[in-house]
């Protein structure tokens, strides 16, 4: 009997130890050089990748595209317990090693730096509700809030754009009717499961099934995402119970997406709470963020969900890689009240950069297992809506570079040039992709009276609807910014009277230098100096 008991304890212990690697940890080993390595870009890259680089004004290749020296990899592999991906971009190898092994590896003359990888267990996020009652309304909202019909009416569907989707699995994408139109025209160009590794991605967590449908799915004639004509590269970079490696799989997938000519990466994944300190979300600490910025440097638009920690008091802010300055971080809107959805993570980054960049509906109708659709909640689903929007914008604005597109999407957003740390510049608007400089009518006026600023709504306040489907219901937005345009305060107000906002200037902090107010498409900037 005692033997049985001891066996049970040992089994449990070995399971736990196996999950976490009791005496060994994960590291990135960075090498000093790539001397003697040769590289032929036209043999390695897909033609679309070369074309994308030319379009972005980049050389066909640079030193970061060259492979890692095989002799370095071989030597370190012999000394480490386990090796993973060798990153060209970072000239680095992912390893598992004991402290003793690590001290030996550190002594190698070609090792430049060793960076530890934090170990945690974390479940891929997926929040699902199956309330049939709201299907049609939700479908309408997720497309309509972006004015997506303007793309659809012009026949713009992301054709010719290659979208890489990084997720935890794409089960039934090979059979689900929401992707019939994609499969029939062979527009799933490449797949790879970095967690296994193998080509089959049609298993595991259905999070990717839903996110992909919000980029370009069609179910029973209803458009779930705008890029129904795009070509897709599907990569599994995460598994439900993570074992250290998911961030390194993400980087491997980014290099793979680059090789296969991706124009856009959609990543509904984020790493922050329970792993990093909030202060580390500064756009330069985590390797995944540096990898995402590197992808942007290769001419790929990286769209990433902001995160669902907005109501988590331990964290609240965006995670990595959404903190990257070249990563389009997408927050969430509650389509039922057009305000920020509670769980969407807030900006800014700890170093004060504006995040999220834009927002989209945080509640979507998306494909689910069993050839059905269901309602999902999360910024995981708002990011793909914007990725689909971006593919359409890229198709329309031919020849545009990734960072120009980044700016176009921000400038097309419903609140632009106003922003706050809840929803960024608001929801991208298709009409503004076609009409770059729409005439914006004033919707309110400012009266200076007895040391106060009194804002009055004008009777003509509905005129701007043509270029802005999202009018934030009857909300008035205002913020106070300092010299560096960092927001000291911001609010969104319900408008229930003709004079919804009065500000007593004498009460304001001396740090407040700029007041911006936005109402129904019109933004007024007032200097408080």
């Amino acid at each position, binding site marked *: 009997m005692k033997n049985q008991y001891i066996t049970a304890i040992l089994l449990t212990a070995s399971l736990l130890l196996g999950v976490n690697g009791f005496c060994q940890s994960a590291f990135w080993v960075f090498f000093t050089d790539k001397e003697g390595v040769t590289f032929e870009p036209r043999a390695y890259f897909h033609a679309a990748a070369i074309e994308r680089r030319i379009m972005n004004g980049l050389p066909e290749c640079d030193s970061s595209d060259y492979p890692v020296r095989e002799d370095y990899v071989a030597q370190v592999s012999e000394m480490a317990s386990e090796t993973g991906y060798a990153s060209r971009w970072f000239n680095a190898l992912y390893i598992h090693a004991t402290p003793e092994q690590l001290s030996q590896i550190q002594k190698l003359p070609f090792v430049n730096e060793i960076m530890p990888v934090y170990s945690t267990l974390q479940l891929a996020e997926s929040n699902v509700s199956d309330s049939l009652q709201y299907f049609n309304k939700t479908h309408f909202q997720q497309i309509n809030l972006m004015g997506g019909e303007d793309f659809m009416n012009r026949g713009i569907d992301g054709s010719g754009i290659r979208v890489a989707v990084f997720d935890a699995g794409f089960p039934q994408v090979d059979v689900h009717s929401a992707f019939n139109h994609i499969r029939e025209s062979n527009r799933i160009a490449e797949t790879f499961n970095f967690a296994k590794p193998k080509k089959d991605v049609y298993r595991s967590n259905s999070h990717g099934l839903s996110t992909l449908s919000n980029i370009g799915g069609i179910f029973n004639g209803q458009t779930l995402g705008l890029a129904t004509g795009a070509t897709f590269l599907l990569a599994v970079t995460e598994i439900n119970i993570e074992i250290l490696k998911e961030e390194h799989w993400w980087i491997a997938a980014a290099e793979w997406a680059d090789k296969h000519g991706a124009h856009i990466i959609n990543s509904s994944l984020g790493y922050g709470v329970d792993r*990093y*300190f909030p202060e*580390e979300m500064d756009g330069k600490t985590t390797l995944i963020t540096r990898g995402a910025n590197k992808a942007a440097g290769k001419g790929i638009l990286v769209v990433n969900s902001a995160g669902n920690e907005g109501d988590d008091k*331990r964290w609240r802010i965006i995670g990595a890689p959404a903190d990257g300055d070249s990563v389009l971080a997408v927050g969430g809107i509650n389509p039922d009240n057009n305000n920020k959805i509670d769980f969407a993570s807030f900006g800014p980054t700890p170093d004060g950069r504006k995040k999220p960049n834009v927002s989209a509906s945080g509640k979507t109708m998306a494909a689910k297992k069993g050839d059905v659709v269901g309602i999902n909640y999360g910024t995981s689903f708002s990011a793909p809506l914007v990725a689909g929007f971006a593919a359409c914008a890229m198709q329309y604005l031919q020849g545009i570079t990734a960072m120009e597109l980044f700016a176009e999407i921000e400038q097309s957003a419903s609140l632009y040039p106003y922003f706050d740390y809840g929803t960024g510049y608001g929801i991208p608007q298709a009409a503004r992709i076609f009409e770059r400089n729409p005439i914006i009518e004033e919707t309110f006026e400012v009266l200076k009276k007895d040391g106060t600023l009194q804002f009055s709504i004008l009777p003509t306040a509905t005129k701007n609807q043509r270029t802005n489907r999202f009018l934030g219901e009857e909300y008035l937005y205002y913020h106070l910014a300092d010299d560096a345009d960092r927001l000291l305060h911001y609010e969104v107000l319900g408008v229930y009277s003709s004079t919804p906002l009065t500000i007593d200037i004498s009460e304001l902090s001396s740090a407040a230098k700029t007041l911006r107010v936005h109402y129904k498409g019109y933004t007024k900037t007032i200097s408080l100096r």
Partner: protein
Amino acid sequence: MKTSFFTTATFVLLSFFSFAQEPVLIKPDTSNYLGGSFGPNKKHYVHSKFSFGINAPVDLIPDMRYSPFRSWNIQVGSIYKYKVSKYFGLIAELALSSENMVFNQDDEISFSPYPTVIGEIERVKWFRTSLDLQLGVRINYQKNRGNTLGNFVDLGVLGGLPLNTRWEYTGVDANNTDMEIVLQRPEFVSLSAGEMPTALSYYYGAYTRVGFNKLAIVVRAVQYTENRWVLLPGIEFEF
């Protein structure tokens, strides 16, 4: 820090008094999460725990066979961690614990002396729910652990107050009739017949925990009767 305080205070006051409007979203207070002292690897941290396990074999009742897979323990509670240094911390825990101990008749035993009204004991089941206070030290041995609990070892002492104790004896009497005796709160019952062990109105013990961020193996050693201790190992989830 002072400037930040006055700026925040000013805006709070403005929100209450100066603006006659109805906000639906206000910039959240950032002090809790940015540069604050609360977090898994910061000065202070409070989180919940849940553990369950199968009790270690114990010779609590003479001539009765311990039934391992019916003898379980669960614990649910909260842990406060105070980080003293990178590798060292203090912890205080408050938890509700339950243990169930089951013993069956040994084949070769046909008679058990207690309680005397039951001639032949077939099964003994002891159940106890209590409130535990645990105090200990934490040694974090993972150097790079980000803002996580990391890998750690806890060592500490505990004290428990039984809230509900129930002892059940099942068997047959001299006429081969099924009998069951249930003692509720046996710590307050005095039995003179047989060799009844004495239940405790409070107890103490020690514990250790080996943690891997949100998973841990925990072993508690607690006093169960006056002169018997039990080992309560389990798997624990930190959340």
